[in-house]
């Protein structure tokens, strides 16, 4: 089963292509895509159990692809990619379940391609290959927003795509430059990060290359001030696209910083850590405060996502063991919580055709079970104990304190930021006066789609050591080296 | 004596007249006549050079150009007939379908 990673990447993509070419109706498409994702989930679980807890790349596959320019098909998985792959494969089938009622064939096809693209981007160890999958991820989202979105969808799909591609373009230039440099210095082309790791540049070039990569990833995450596409895009996008963007693609930006920027530009990353930690903390507070007065639910949770992701970025630039573990754990727990919340937003939209706080209210009178789950997931975002969010916030706060006491205090304000908008939100839409005539209770398939997420969030909160064991060695990677380099 | 230089000057003059006619005249037939004029000017120069250097290759080129010009002429004239049938006008300024539309809304 050494090719399991390739299977994980290409099964969804090939199924999508097949389903597109064959004239099948929506029902068959839906069932097939669901079975395909269940299959990849099973594969990923198998891989999880066989993943060893060490800091090396595992299940590595390396084949020469375009020999003349050293572009290889080089993929592998380690602790952090493991998290992304597991989250992707766990959330996708549940996402499909919660949208079982959809009847647009293109929706499912695009989701499959994004699935494959995400897996590919998270597993690539060759820069050109990574770029290929990075763009593969982007294009279906363009279609999803443009075809199936809500108000202002045409403009927002263009804006989102162009903005992201602009960043990726600069990154592509940097990638090509790196390959070229490798050719100059070592007289053969290569785009594998293991090879490029050996390159050395002068200060100015390093800075420009570093900036190009960071720019592309900051747009994706998003980091202040490259975030303005976020609230409007979320408002215009269909829920399925939002779940993927918030729960998975955003984390991929963080992952990419870890995989590429930290590997290729170690010293500069470490030296610039102060700036990024500050930026992360600033973003966390900025986006959290911005969410307080939002009246449109998708925008509110867009800002909430941005806030938590900035916190994660702070974590990885803190360069210590606890902060890195906290960042990894938060990638997982936030993915689960935000996926669940957006899926529930989708359920609200399906029933009421509106996601505006003013039109909702008193849901608890109609649908107590729904309200209970909604409240639970909202609290998991806040980070109460017994949820995964608490463990990750705890580790991140400790990591921040270790970096710098003042930053530690600022990071501890995360305890306050989320509750400010979550509790008001719950009050207005769950309790509050009854503004809806009808709001049907959760149906079986909807229940099935969110219960696994709830159980996983609880498990991550009550038994964190089980989950952390697999990723501990990877988290130590940049702490030992940094401390030994700095000294 | 009349030598190559004179033919060159004549050819250039004819060619310039052709270009100016191409750009400045509005009647598409006249524009086409200017194109033919340009081609003939080139033929003249080629033949003169061939005589001057005693090399037959230029004359071969001139004959090929004449043949191609003839084929061109048939296509052009057929197109002009179709254009006139549709637009009822022989004014070059009239045919601006490839114009860039000015729009002020978003992409």
């Amino acid at each position, binding site marked *: 089963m050494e090719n399991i990673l390739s299977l994980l990447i290409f099964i969804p993509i090939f199924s999508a292509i097949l389903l597109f070419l064959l004239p099948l109706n929506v029902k068959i498409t839906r069932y097939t895509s669901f079975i395909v994702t269940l299959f990849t989930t099973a594969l990923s679980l198998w891989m999880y159990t066989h993943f060893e807890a060490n800091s090396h790349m595992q299940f590595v596959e390396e084949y020469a692809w375009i020999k003349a320019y050293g572009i290889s098909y080089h993929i592998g998985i380690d602790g952090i990619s493991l998290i992304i792959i597991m989250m992707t494969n766990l959330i996708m089938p549940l996402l499909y379940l919660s949208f079982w009622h959809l009847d647009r064939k293109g929706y499912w096809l695009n989701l499959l391609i994004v699935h494959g693209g995400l897996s590919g981007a998270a597993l690539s160890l060759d820069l050109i290959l990574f770029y290929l999958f990075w763009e593969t991820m982007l294009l279906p989202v363009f279609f999803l927003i443009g075809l199936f979105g809500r108000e202002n969808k045409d403009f927002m799909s263009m804006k989102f795509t162009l903005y992201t591609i602009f960043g990726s373009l600069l990154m592509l230039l940097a990638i090509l430059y790196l390959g070229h440099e490798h050719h100059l210095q070592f007289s053969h082309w290569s785009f594998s990060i293991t090879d490029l790791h050996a390159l050395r540049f002068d200060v100015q070039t390093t800075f420009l290359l570093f900036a190009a990569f960071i720019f592309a990833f900051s747009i994706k995450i998003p980091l202040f001030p490259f975030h303005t596409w976020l609230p409007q895009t979320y408002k215009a996008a269909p829920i399925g696209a939002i779940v993927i963007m918030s729960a998975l693609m955003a984390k991929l930006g963080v992952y990419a910083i870890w995989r590429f920027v930290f590997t290729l530009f170690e010293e500069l990353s470490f030296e610039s850590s102060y700036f990024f930690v500050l930026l992360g903390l600033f973003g966390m507070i900025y986006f959290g*405060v911005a969410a307080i007065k939002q009246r449109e639910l998708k925008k509110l949770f867009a800002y909430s996502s941005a806030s938590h992701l900035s916190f994660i970025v702070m974590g990885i630039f803190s360069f210590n063991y606890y902060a890195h573990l906290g960042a990894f754990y938060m990638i997982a727990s936030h993915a689960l919580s935000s996926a669940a919340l957006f899926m529930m937003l989708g359920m609200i939209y399906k029933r009421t055709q509106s996601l505006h706080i003013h039109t909702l209210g008193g849901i608890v009178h109609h649908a107590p079970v729904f309200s209970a789950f909604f409240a639970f997931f909202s609290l998991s975002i806040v980070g109460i104990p017994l949820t995964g969010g608490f463990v990750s916030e705890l580790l991140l706060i400790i990591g921040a304190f270790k970096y710098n006491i003042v930053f530690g205090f600022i990071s501890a304000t995360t305890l*306050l930021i989320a509750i400010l908008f979550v509790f008001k939100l719950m009050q207005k839409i769950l309790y509050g006066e009854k503004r809806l005539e009808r709001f049907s209770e959760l149906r079986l398939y909807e229940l099935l789609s969110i219960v696994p997420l709830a159980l996983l969030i609880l498990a991550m909160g009550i038994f964190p050591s089980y989950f952390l064991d697999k990723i501990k060695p990877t988290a130590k990677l940049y702490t030992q080296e940094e401390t030994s380099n700095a000294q | 004596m009349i030598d190559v230089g004179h033919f060159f000057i004549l050819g250039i003059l004819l060619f310039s007249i052709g*270009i100016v006619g*191409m750009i400045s005249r509005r009647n598409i037939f006249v524009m086409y006549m200017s194109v033919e004029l340009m081609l003939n000017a080139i033929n003249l120069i080629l033949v003169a050079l061939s005589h001057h250097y005693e090399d037959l290759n230029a004359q071969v080129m001139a004959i090929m150009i004449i043949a191609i010009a003839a084929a061109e002429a048939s296509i052009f004239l057929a197109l002009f007939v179709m254009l006139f049938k549709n637009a009822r006008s022989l004014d*070059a300024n009239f045919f*601006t379908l490839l114009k860039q539309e000015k729009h002020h809304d978003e992409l």
Partner: protein
Amino acid sequence: MMSSSLLGWIIASVFFSSVFIMLINLYSKYNDDIPQRVYTLLGLGGPFVSLFLSFLLIYEHLYKGINFYYKAFIWLDLEGFRVDASLILDPLAAAMLSFVSLVGFIIHLYAHAYMKEDPSYARFFAWFNLFMASMFLLILSDNPFMLFTGWEGVGLCSYLLISFYFQSEENIEAGNKAFILNRIGDFGFISGLALLFLQVGNAGLDFASLEANIHLIPHSTLNLIAFLLFVGAMGKSAQIPLYVWLPDAMAGPTPVSALIHAATMVTAGVYMVARFNFIYAITEEVGLLIAYIGALSALLGALIAMRQDDIKKILAYSTMSQLGYMFMAVGLGAYSYGIFHVFTHAFFKALLFMGAGAIILALHHEQNIKNMGALKEKMPFVFVMMLIATLSISGLPPFSGFFSKDAILNHLFASGNYLIFAMALFTAGLTSYYMFRLLVIVFISPSSKDHQLLPQAKLIQFTLLVLSIGALFAGFINLPVFFGGDEEYSLWINLPDIRFHLSHSNELLLLISNVAVSLAGIYFALSHYMSSSKDPSLGVLDKPIEHKFYIDEIYYAIFVKPLAWLSVFIVRVIDEKIIDAFIHTVSSGYQRFSYYTDSVQNGNVRYYALYMSVAIVCIFVYLGVS
């Protein structure tokens, strides 16, 4: 030899009964209703099992003098950061466990009678039991992180129970306020824990290891840690400046106020300071600060209580005030006296709340004392119970409140902090004044309204009776030497109290002054309110006291409004007008550029011919020149 896993079952039994109630309730939403008996069985069975196990273990602990230690599983095991899900039963934990499980169960019985007609009976008991589980976890934890888990858990349940009657927006806002202020405290608490961990955490995070290594921490850092941990206590135990949630919390059902906001959750802060005694014993400056905040909170609470008209709000401010006493004690090193006052306070305060609840029920949910009166004849049993509790809180011998309060006051005087002592003494007078004001207006002074009383459940009377025994006699377990006792309780808890030695005559003087001040307060209350329920004027202080010193309004203006403004500012101005506008100028600039240059493509062939000619000429010139 008893298995220490029973410790885990104390928590597990209430936790599982809560979970079962939730699941059964969830199931009943899709199917037919479940009879209330099922929920009662679970909801009362869980706490009863916990009570039984608690007393079993405490008995073993007392009898054999051993501590119980139970490790459930490893929660987090990173290098240098190891947190186990482990529990301990040592004297301090046993002291807390004894009354929490007992009073908790009694109040559960009371709640059954109180909430019997409520349609959300199941939900109530689910949260009530979950609260007990969190409180048990808090008390029995072996390390600060598990304690914090219980800490947050009780905060969450407090929110769920305060906003129990969610039909009214005010109740939910009260719940939000409680949770947010709690969290502000938690912000300090977590910061303190993080710093503590980073200093000595890798040598072990359970309390015993921390205690052993505490001397390794530099003094200034230790001061900071002690202060930050106390910030958590400020939020949880409603001390200045984070107390404003407590009066609003009275929006919850009365059993909630009795259990959570009187006897158990609010005392968690005191317990925490006692648990961390090894830190506070070293950081005397922070201890002094704690004592001052306790004194101010006690005074403020008592002042506001003097003019409140809602019976539950009076008791809420009274709780804040009494908590101040506990902090004065632990701040100045009298840990066991503080815990002792927690113990006695649990009984008489719960009794007061439960009595108030009985009155509220009987009078069709009337809560304003000015609308009550002359209930002595109509509700004699409740009157006697409330009288016992009021005498206890006023600190009159031989009631339990006297022993605990007197011990604290003596300690304050003997420690040399005369300002704190004076504030505490004055507050004692105010305490008896406002408590008797309540008693007299409700039961004795003539009534303005005529009430038709609803019959009272026997269960309610039974629970009140049980608690009154505690309010009467609990003091005797810690009889001071002066009265011929040995302070067995304090000895047993075995905390590093600072002991001052007072001469016999000093003790007698203090005793007399304490009782005298209390009696003075009673006298003033009786003389004013016996005949009429109108409040006498306090001159210029009238308006501020009535409006609770405008603290809520001040907080709103300083924190809430600016934050809301900032949120809108960020989105409308910074995001939309500045950053996004910049991006739009880039894209619209591009469009503008094309607008100006697209006149080149006018579709006219002649122009194209011109362009081509010019270009070709230029190329040839270039080729010719170079």
